[in-house]
């Protein structure tokens, strides 16, 4: 009974945090973005990703870092209390939520793997692009039944280029297009999509759409370092879309994610200016508050556990 109460209470606290946080994020992400005013597409994509996973991360942190320890340390094991209807119902809802998330992520991963196996059948390894950070991203040349240009794979992303893309794009266009795909691979955008799949909440479509657009622009920025590069990438986008090749599959980042964003991306590329300096990482802006928060938590951990236990006691009764 102790273990059942422990699990029930922990899951109940998780969902009590997850739902309001998700609701707040789904309603307020645009306000927060406007308030932060990210300077680049990459910062904007990062901010949106953080906001999207914040409810899951924060709820998990509170549950595993506070609720569970407080219950294990402060709840007398000899007490023969019942679980209580509220934690039982909430815990059941939480289990459903986690189950749906796992099923969605698993299905997505399964379909992506199947598609990748199909696309790689008969493909040829063109090269492995070793990036500045030393990571190698393999580039495969595939047949024409695969997407024109795409990144597939979650933990070990691969760039796939179809025969049609190689035939259609000139070397400069192909280079920038591959640069765009490699940027996606290095930022593990497919993995992020998988996390979105796991973190279930119905009203997040707007946030995910915005993240997707910013991610595409961030990859464009990463692939382009001069005005001619920008024009080459714009030309590649137009050529790929002329193929009518909006055929990206599960958890893949196709070069042309969606034709609705095409105009904005091409217009942005042809207006490319050199002023886009390399991003100065102001990590201290985030590290300092985070370090302060850790210190506060460590200093007050005991009393927080007591308070958390009081809350869970109230929940059980």
């Amino acid at each position, binding site marked *: 009974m102790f273990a059942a109460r422990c699990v029930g209470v922990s899951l109940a606290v998780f969902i009590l945090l997850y739902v309001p946080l998700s609701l707040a994020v789904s309603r307020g992400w645009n306000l927060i973005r406007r308030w932060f005013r990210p300077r680049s597409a990459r910062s904007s994509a990062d901010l949106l990703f953080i906001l999207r996973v914040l409810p899951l991360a924060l709820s998990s942190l509170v549950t595993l870092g506070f609720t569970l320890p407080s219950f294990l340390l402060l709840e007398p094991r000899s007490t023969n209390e019942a679980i209580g209807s509220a934690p039982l119902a909430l815990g059941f809802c939480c289990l459903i939520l986690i189950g749906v998330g796992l099923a969605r992520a698993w299905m*997505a991963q399964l*379909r*992506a793997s199947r598609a990748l196996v199909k696309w790689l059948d008969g493909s040829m390894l063109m090269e492995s692009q070793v990036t500045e950070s030393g990571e190698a991203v393999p580039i495969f040349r595939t047949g024409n039944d695969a997407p024109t240009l795409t990144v597939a794979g979650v933990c070990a992303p691969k760039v796939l280029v179809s025969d049609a893309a190689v035939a259609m794009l000139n070397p400069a266009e192909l280079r920038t297009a591959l640069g765009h795909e490699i940027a996606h691979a290095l930022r593990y955008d497919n993995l992020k*999509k998988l996390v*979105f*799949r796991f973190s*279930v*909440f*119905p*009203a*997040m*479509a*707007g*946030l*995910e*759409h915005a*993240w*997707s657009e910013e*991610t595409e622009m961030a990859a464009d920025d990463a692939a382009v370092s001069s*005005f*001619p590069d920008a*024009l080459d990438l*714009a*030309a590649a986008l*137009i050529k790929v*879309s*002329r193929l*009518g090749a*909006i*055929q*990206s*599959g*599960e*958890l893949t980042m196709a070069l042309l*994610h*969606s*034709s*609705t964003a*095409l*105009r904005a991306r*091409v*217009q942005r590329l*042809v207006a490319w200016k050199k002023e886009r300096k390399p991003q100065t990482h102001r990590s201290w802006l985030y590290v300092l508050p985070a370090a302060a928060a850790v210190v506060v938590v460590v200093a007050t951990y005991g009393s927080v556990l007591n308070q958390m236990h009081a809350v869970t006691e109230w929940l059980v009764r």
Partner: protein
Amino acid sequence: MKQIFSLLRRSPSTQLGPLEQELLSALWMRGSATVREMLDAGGINLAYTTVMTTLDRLYKKQLLNRSADGRAFRYSPRYTQEELEKAAVGETVRQLLGSGEAAALPLSYLVEAVSEHDAGLLDDLQRLLDEKRRERRSELRSRENR
């Protein structure tokens, strides 16, 4: 009809106001029209500029096509009522499932519909790109001449 508009209202990208709905319905019935023709046909008691602005908004929302007709624009619906209904249903289902484009996998009807009308858009973008390339070439030439 009301069902389509109520579905579209839920889609942030294609939210339609009552005036937009009224004009889109009128265009579905007529096939195509200029602002003047719509007003002359009766049934729409609005100022010329209001109709013009609303049609322009529908065009920007990619729900209408337009072509020059003398000094005015002739508007026609980009999608049939049936196509829009399918798109709206797809969009709503996708939103209910919480899977935006970011998490999209199987392609939705909306994307296909968008890609169908993109030939014109691609021509526009190609022209823009060619223009930029020409500008750049002439800029380089003038620099060399200096």
